[in-house]
């Protein structure tokens, strides 16, 4: 693996703290004879924006599945906020503030758009049966959650669908809902799996702006999988490149763009398309 970050670490330090919110240590996973992730290690600084790129089948989504606990590692350690999380249940990982979105934009079709968002709010007293009799606390919390959901929907232009079943949304709108829902959970680290695929370019720009604001205001950290290289280069302060389950390069966007190994394995002629 080529570590290119050190070449211009000043730029990284400007945008993120030194504290590693996520420390992935030599993780591997195998399903039968297939090894989608092999001995992968990296650290993510708090308040940073890191992108993971690579060809299809490189192991990017598998990596997200391991970090979020959806699949368990065969070897290695994952440390999130100084706690090992590789062996704990995904819902407990999420409760610690590590939230993810899904490549295929998983939405709950038979909940309304607003309900999809409200479900993500953490600490709802109504989520526990013991809170059933705390009517006022539940009602107040729901009102706040609804207001927050409407704000999020306004950001992505879905307000008019708030009380419609989410199943009626188009593919791009589902992506927006998935992203908004993850933000509703107020994560400290958000894993975004191709959140902009199928979303119109104007809205992508707006979403990038929203993510930037969240990063500044809420000290949110982002780890993004994205195929649109222009977006990746514009938004990221660090890029990790994967191929065949391994990290083949890790560094600043500019350095990655010039890296021969990356050009051979992934960028190829697309490099010219990036301005």
């Amino acid at each position: 693996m080529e570590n290119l970050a050190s070449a211009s670490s000043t730029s990284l330090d400007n945008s993120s703290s030194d504290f590693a919110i996520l420390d992935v240590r030599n993780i591997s996973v195998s399903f039968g004879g297939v090894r989608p992730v092999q001995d992968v290690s990296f650290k993510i600084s708090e308040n940073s924006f890191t992108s993971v790129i690579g060809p299809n089948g490189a192991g990017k989504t598998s990596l997200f599945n391991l970090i979020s606990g959806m699949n368990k590692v065969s070897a290695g350690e994952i440390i999130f906020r100084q706690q090992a999380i590789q062996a704990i249940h995904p819902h407990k990982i999420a409760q610690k503030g590590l939230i993810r979105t899904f490549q295929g934009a998983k939405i709950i079709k038979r909940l309304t758009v607003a309900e999809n968002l409200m479900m993500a709010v953490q600490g709802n007293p109504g989520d526990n049966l013991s809170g059933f009799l705390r009517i006022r606390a539940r009602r107040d919390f729901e009102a706040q959650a609804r207001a927050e959901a409407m704000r999020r929907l306004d950001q992505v232009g879905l307000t008019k669908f708030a009380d419609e079943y989410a199943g009626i949304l188009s593919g791009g709108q589902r992506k927006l809902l998935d992203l908004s829902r993850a933000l509703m959970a107020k994560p400290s680290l958000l894993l975004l799996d191709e959140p902009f695929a199928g979303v119109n370019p104007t809205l992508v720009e707006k979403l990038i702006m929203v993510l930037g604001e969240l990063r500044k205001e809420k000290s949110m950290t982002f780890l993004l999988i994205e195929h649109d290289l222009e977006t990746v280069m514009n938004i990221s302060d660090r890029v990790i490149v994967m191929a065949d389950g391994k990290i083949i390069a890790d560094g600043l966007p500019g350095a990655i763009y010039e890296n021969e190994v990356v050009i051979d394995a992934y960028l190829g002629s697309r490099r010219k398309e990036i301005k």
Partner: protein
Amino acid sequence: MDAFVQPGFWVFVLALAGIYGIFALGLQIQYGVGGIMNFGHVGMMAVSGYTIAVLVIKYQWSFWWAAFVGVVLAALLGALLGLTTLRLSGDYFAIASIAFAEITRYWILNTDSVTGGTQGTLAIPNPLGFGGYTNQPDLILTWISDRLYPIVGDEASRDMSMIFIVWPFLFLFIWIASKLQQTSWARVLRATREDDDVPRSLGKNVFRFRLQTLVIGSVFGGIAGVFWALQFALLAPEDFLRIVTFYGWMILILAGATRVKGLIIASIFFGFLYGSTRFLEFWPLSLLSSPERAYLRVFLIGFVIVLLMLKRPQGLFGKRQEMVLE
């Protein structure tokens, strides 16, 4: 056709509908909200009903305490069923739940010294030489009957008194269930009905939610068992055949699985179907013997379920849009 105009027929229909309404409410919470396909719900009814009979007859417990313990046991068995099998996906859980109910029934059938075995609760060994278990609640039923007599005359009956006990409970439970289904707890459950990964990735313990749903549904199954035991005052293993669970499913499908209030009309329809195949003897039913009419009931219930699936899968009160979203 005489039976149709007999008040006694409709009183029976309503009493039965009330009990099955509570029974189906348990399934509604489990399937309509949580997507859990429980085909062994009758097991909960059997457990609470038999618990009452055994504790009252064999150990001379108070009926009320025995009923309480019966419902608690049904809830515990629901928890046991969930802890052991709830990690199975939809269809596999359904199969496991049938097995669970059948194990319960076979245990009742083959434990003569405790349950009376094939002869039912009349054969439960009793130091007092008496096989009934409804003495205490019968006092209340008689009290209600006495109050009804001046109003309805000879039509005042035990069945009619049962209506005055069961239906207020049914309305109360439906009210509680509809309030429960407006909570964020139910919202998470409705999400788990479609996808486990989403709620899990948002910090929701899907297994806990499902287990709670199964237990709550089992409590309603257990309460239905209490009323069943009270209504018939005699229990036998064949009262708790697999088909009884599907009576509940028919009510649920007819009501629309996600619509709790539809259970009222659907359970009355079922009560009518059940009562008419039991008591009505006009042509062409007169061509059939009593056991044959019981089979006709099973046929009709199957027919109604298939018809609903084809023509109105959302049930009478459900939203069709929910069924077609992809």
